[in-house]
């Protein structure tokens, strides 16, 4: 790829973080095992070194004996003794929270951005460190300095823009600007691209390379392997919270990383054993459906036992289309047929009764009840169906159902009574999926089914979807990960700006990344090339 050689000053170990969603910079329970602070390596000096780090979150041990070494700059940190001690330039310091981490030049950019949307860009960049004179905020001075930072990161907005007006990608730039302004030597980025389109992500990568060349060390946490190959100078892999190993750039082949992450090879990640049925009447047919805003005249058909991919850029209207189908929003025009019968859903409940289940892309915001137990989350949608007299819970049945789901979907949890909020992303997703499956859907709509999910759970979700399709369920998969769409789907439809831009596979052009991107961006409106599969 187009990455320059290891610069003498910096490198970016991409840390593949697997199996849990809890990340901590507050370092705890550490065994003193430090190495020399001024170890020079080919790629630079160590900035940060951690060894034998463990972290418990709730009752779950999320990190076990993790080691991490980051090179660049002139800082060396090591941690010692329970409570965590860190040495910077030979001086012992302790990091016990985000604030002290920032004081020592470490900035974290979280998955869920931590900006105040009601404030301006300048105010956010300065948040907590406002330039003031006797308590009076020096707006002018802040704005001037902000402009320098924004210029450095190539931002196309102004210090006095309100953050609420910015896109997610722009907000991320604000976070990076904040880190730069704080003179951070180490920036930790946690899945920064999950909410970005691929073009926005590319811009972010360019910026990251530029920062690296300036001597900033970046720890990049990602589930997306393509990004890791493209960016990282070193790759460290965690699996189930356990440190597996670190690869230098030259050794970090896709196959090697996947083997470390899954413990097996990439080819087994996707499973496609199902065969789409060739029924004359499709399980779901959508004709010229619109919501008047984001979805415009979309038509497609989905057959029994088929996995249909729905690709497109962020904001192309994919989720909105799913909302129309499952009745979460009402359509303004068009019609929908389920097994040949016209339907008109006004609420999600009605679509559920008709055998449609929708897996939301926003697992925590729109899917799970984080305070409730795993069992309650699984049983929630279905418990009315076998309740005594329609309303007294059948607790025995609920227990069985939860146990069965935990068993068959391989949900890793101590007990069905664990609050679902304490589980890892992958296990949360499986809990949510099992709630949908309990309704025995005939049509399953999966919106970003593996977002924020580790690769082990990913391959299990792929297996589950394949099994469902084999059992005759019609599956619509919305995904921004092209490899996933290609790996799972029999056919792919691509949305662009609210419309179906085209269809791939099965008599159309082949399902390839190039073809999907061409349709999604409108870049290659090439004439139909006939069968090439």
């Amino acid at each position, binding site marked *: 790829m187009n990455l320059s050689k290891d610069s003498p000053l910096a490198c970016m170990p991409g840390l593949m973080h697997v199996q849990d969603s809890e990340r901590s910079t507050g370092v705890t329970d550490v065994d003193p095992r430090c190495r020399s602070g001024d170890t020079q390596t080919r790629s630079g000096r160590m900035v940060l070194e951690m060894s034998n780090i463990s972290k418990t979150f*709730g009752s779950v041990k999320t990190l076990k004996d993790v080691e991490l070494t980051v090179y660049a700059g002139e800082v060396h940190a090591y941690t010692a003794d329970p409570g965590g001690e860190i040495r910077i330039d030979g001086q012992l310091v302790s990091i016990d929270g985000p604030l002290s981490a920032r004081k020592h030049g470490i900035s974290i950019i979280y998955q869920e951005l931590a900006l105040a949307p009601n404030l301006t860009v300048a105010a956010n960049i300065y948040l907590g460190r406002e330039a003031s004179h006797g308590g009076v905020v020096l707006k002018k001075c802040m704005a001037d300095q902000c402009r320098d930072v924004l210029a450095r990161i190539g931002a196309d907005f102004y210090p006095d823009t309100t953050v609420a007006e910015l896109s997610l990608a722009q907000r991320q730039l604000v976070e990076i600007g904040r880190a730069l302004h704080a003179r951070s030597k180490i920036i930790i980025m946690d899945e920064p691209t999950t909410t970005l389109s691929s073009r926005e992500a590319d811009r972010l990568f360019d910026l990251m390379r530029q920062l690296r060349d300036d001597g900033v060390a970046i720890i990049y946490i990602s589930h997306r392997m393509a990004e890791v190959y493209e960016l990282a100078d070193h790759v460290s892999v965690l699996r189930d919270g356990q440190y597996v190993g670190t690869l230098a750039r030259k050794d970090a082949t896709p196959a090697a990383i996947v083997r470390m992450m899954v413990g097996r090879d990439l080819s087994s990640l996707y499973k496609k054993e199902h065969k789409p049925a060739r029924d004359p009447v499709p399980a779901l047919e959508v004709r010229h459906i619109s919501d008047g805003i984001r979805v415009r005249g979309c038509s497609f058909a989905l057959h029994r036992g088929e996995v249909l991919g729905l690709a497109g850029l962020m904001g192309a209207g994919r989720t909105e289309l799913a909302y129309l189908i499952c009745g979460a929003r009402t359509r303004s025009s068009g019609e929908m047929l389920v097994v040949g019968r016209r339907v008109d859903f006004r609420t999600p409940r009605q679509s559920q009764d008709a055998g449609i289940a929708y897996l939301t892309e926003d697992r925590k915001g729109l899917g799970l009840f984080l*305070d409730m137990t795993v069992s309650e989350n699984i049983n929630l949608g279905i418990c009315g169906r076998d309740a005594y007299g329609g309303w007294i819970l059948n607790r025995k049945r609920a227990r069985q159902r939860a146990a069965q789901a935990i068993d068959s979907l391989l949900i890793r949890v101590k007990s069905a009574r664990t609050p679902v909020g304490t589980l890892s992303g992958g296990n949360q997703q499986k809990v949510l999926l099992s*709630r949908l499956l309990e309704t025995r859907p005939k049509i399953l709509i999966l919106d970003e089914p593996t977002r924020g999910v580790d690769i082990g759970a990913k391959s299990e979700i792929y297996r589950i979807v394949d099994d469902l399709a084999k059992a005759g369920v019609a599956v619509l998969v919305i995904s921004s990960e092209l490899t996933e769409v290609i790996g799972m789907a029999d056919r792919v439809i691509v949305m662009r700006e609210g419309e179906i831009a085209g269809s791939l596979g099965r008599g159309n052009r082949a399902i390839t990344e190039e073809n999907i991107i061409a349709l999604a961006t409108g870049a290659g409106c090439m004439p139909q090339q006939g069968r090439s599969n």
Partner: protein
Amino acid sequence: MNRAIESNGVIKAACARLSLRGFGMLPILVILGVLMQVVTLYVTGEGSFLTSQNMGIVAQQAAINVVLAAGMTFVIITGGIDLSVGSILSAAAMVALIVSLHAGPMAIPAALAAGLVLGLCNGALIAFFGLPPFIVTLGSLTAVRGIARLVGGDATVFNAELPFAFLGNGSLTIIPGVFSVPYLAIIALAVVLVSWFILKRTVLGIHIYAVGGNADAARLSGIRPWAVLLFVYAVSGLLAGLGGAMSAARLYAANGLQLGQSYELDAITAVILGGTSFVGGVGSIWGTLVGALIIAVLSNGLILIGVSDIWQYIIKGLVIIGAVTLDRYRLRENART
């Protein structure tokens, strides 16, 4: 060995967190009870707090608040609030007394119906028009107070021959001369049991927690949030109606202007003391019972000790703030990414 110590610590932390929820306030109730006994012993020379007679009085005093707080628990679990229960109680008590003067046996059903209808009005505005519960019930707090004054012609209504007066002042004798339980307390306990059953053992209960925990997710998973909201405000109104009947039975009289003033605050205090989170989705009815008893023990004990009315207010207010502090602490404990 290290691991054993660590898991021990985890268990301890979990217990500490649990103890702040629901039953968590039980030790505080016990401590408060013993404290009152010791102080009364010290001040008056005899421990007048922990006597079976005084316990009966505490139970009787707590009963109406327990009933209101039970309804409030439903509402707060959905993330809402019902400020109108004091006014509804007053209106229902007026209805009970007026009906008892003309059609005796219908008094209690009439009070319940009045409460239910007013609760449904709150619920309909919140469920169907999506108005904020605080504003809707703040409005009905005032409007229903007006209705309470209106139905009685802004006068106190008496009925010396109230047919259900025994409910207010009588007791069920368990051991003659030694131990008896006031009927009001029995009603309150029954309400708590039914509430527990609905919240923990029915589909509706699960839906109530679900709507409070994540209303959007609830809708997407096929729950009808409007039905849940309508239900909880109706229950809160109904129980305020029951509270009105209980209050009428106790006093043989009702006054639209004064009865039930600031009862909603006592109910909210009980719910929050009981560990139900203001944010919604978390809470238990047993906690509410303990919370209401803490308030009753506090008021009763302070009177026995001879603390002045003014200081009772101050202490009670500090308890509310303490409760909210606990709520915050608990939320932070549960904070997750």
